[in-house]
């Protein structure tokens, strides 16, 4: 298949359409505005619906409405806008609605800036909205990987009946890369496969099959049962959906952990240092929820590993999961920047060498 040079945001939007998304609700915010712009032109071509909402709050509730019919629905935003969506995301999780939410992260807190950041890791994987829920959360590190994940994201959302979150950063959305775009998937709502959806129940039909899209369970007993059902999905996702990449970790004495585009900077450093004979590797979680705790632990607990360096563009958010995985078994240090400054190869190199030399 031929490679095409595409901008990240447009490639992700096209992949969503090819994966069967026919409804997009969103609101302009930098650095992801090219996604709604692309959708506004492309959706009518495939008989889909693009609607510019009055706010991110409304957009996620439109997602709730459309996803409740069993359709494949997507919304995108960037950090401050994703904060506004948190109420609706919690409702989607509570109502077990499959959908896809894109967060093209920018610097925060508050308005922050419009450059790439990784500051919403906590928001994405540790909650965000109210209640005990999780989102199946992917952190792609290239445009191609974002496309590939998008092609199965709706299947996963439907399998586990939970929203999927893309934790991408501004660089993924803004850069252009050569990509291979998969063929269009033929998706149609199948009411048999989605008995929970609002697909045309009428009086006289089985009352148990009436579509009721809902997150309220007013008495303690029924809310307990409902939460147990949610937890069952999360358990299954934890068991089946963890994804990660190990890069040159087999004999590594120093293991670097990083996610998203930062991992690519780390890879450049690793390649340089390997030429010089320094044994260093990268562990990159692709799902940040569920976090691949066991795989990371197994990777870094090998006897030759002297220490772990976590690199992020935030104050050390994934660092907490890295430490949870390692349980104090190896020393973990952190290097990162705030304010959307990406660490340079020289900076990362210096930090790796410090660990290698036991400093």
């Amino acid at each position, binding site marked *: 298949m031929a490679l095409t040079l595409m901008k990240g945001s447009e490639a992700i939007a096209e992949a969503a359409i090819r994966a069967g998304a026919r409804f997009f609700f969103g609101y302009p915010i930098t650095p992801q505005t090219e996604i709604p712009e692309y959708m506004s032109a492309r959706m009518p071509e495939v008989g889909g*619906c693009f609607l510019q909402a009055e706010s991110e709050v*409304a957009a996620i509730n439109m997602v709730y409405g459309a996803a409740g019919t069993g359709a494949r629905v997507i919304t995108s935003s960037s950090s401050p806008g994703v904060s506004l969506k948190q109420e609706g995301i919690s409702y989607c999780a509570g109502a077990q609605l499959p959908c896809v939410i894109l967060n093209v992260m920018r610097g925060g807190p508050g308005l922050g800036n419009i450059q790439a950041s990784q500051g919403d890791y906590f928001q994405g994987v540790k909650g965000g909205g109210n209640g005990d829920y999780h989102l199946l959360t992917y952190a792609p590190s290239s445009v191609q990987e974002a496309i590939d994940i998008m092609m199965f994201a709706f299947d996963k959302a439907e399998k586990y009946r939970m929203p999927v979150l893309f934790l991408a950063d501004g660089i993924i959305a803004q850069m252009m890369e050569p990509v291979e775009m998969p063929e269009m998937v033929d998706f149609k709502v199948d009411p048999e496969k989605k008995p929970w959806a609002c697909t045309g129940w*009428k009086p006289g*039909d089985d009352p148990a099959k009436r579509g009721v899209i809902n997150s309220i369970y007013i008495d303690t007993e029924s809310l307990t049962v409902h939460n147990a059902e949610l937890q069952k999905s999360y358990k299954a996702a934890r068991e089946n959906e963890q994804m990660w990449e190990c890069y040159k970790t087999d004999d590594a004495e120093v293991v670097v952990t990083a996610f998203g585009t930062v991992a690519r900077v780390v890879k450049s450093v690793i390649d340089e240092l390997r030429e010089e004979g320094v044994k260093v590797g990268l562990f990159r979680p692709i799902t940040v929820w569920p976090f691949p705790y066991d795989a990371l632990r197994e990777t870094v607990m090998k006897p030759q590993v002297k220490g772990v360096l976590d690199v992020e563009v935030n104050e050390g958010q994934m660092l907490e999961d890295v430490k949870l995985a390692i349980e104090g078994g190896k020393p973990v240090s952190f290097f990162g920047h705030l304010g959307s400054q990406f660490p340079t190869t020289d900076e990362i190199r210096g930090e790796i060498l410090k660990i290698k030399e036991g400093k």
Partner: protein
Amino acid sequence: MSVVFEKTKLLTDKQFHYCPGCNHGIIHRLVAESIDELIQEGKLEAGNVMGVAPVGCSVFAYDYFNCDMYEAAHGRAPAVATGAKRARPGTLVFTYQGDGDLASIGTAEIVHAAHRGEKIVTIFVNNAIYGMTGGQMAPTTLVGQKTTTSPYGRDEAWCGAPIKVSEMLSEVPGAYYIERCAVNNNANILKTKKAIKKAFEYQLNGKGFCLIEVLSTCPTNWGLNPIEAMKWLEDNMIPYYPLGVKKDKGAE
């Protein structure tokens, strides 16, 4: 023997949780009967109905309306209805919202649903108070009216005069039909039903956004018995919130 009356199939057999004297029961029935009639008249296919319940006293409306239903976040019903209607354009979609839900936390969603000319119907039940949380001041609470958060009576200088939703929305270009009704006597109940059914027919004919405001009592939180409450509504609410058609593009 011919059947002269039967309960509409568009309501489930679930017992209402509403307080004695509350008007929700009447309004629920008018909505359900109107939909049922449209089905009987062959104007609407059974199964092509989706309703959206709000947060407030009618939060459990999904248990009462016998069709596909959503329970929305507080104030967001018009956005949820928008998503549902866009996904299944051939269906009849309605929201059922109170005045705390629609006139306070949900103003952005209702104004923009009207602004887009969204082909949905909103049933807006205005009882000038927050019922479910126990009688707090709403944007619709009358000046001087005592509530648990306006214990000295609503002070206009401090928190403004009550908002007139129907008049406000009638100024939005995308709004197609807006009428304020009440269910305080038989004549008005029949008028309310006529208005609701007309709004549904407009939607089925692809017209724009319709809202029927229904003034309602809240005997529990007003501290009145049901008969006194109805009189209070007639003496205080109707003069401030005049009944009638505020906008009807179909009649122009």
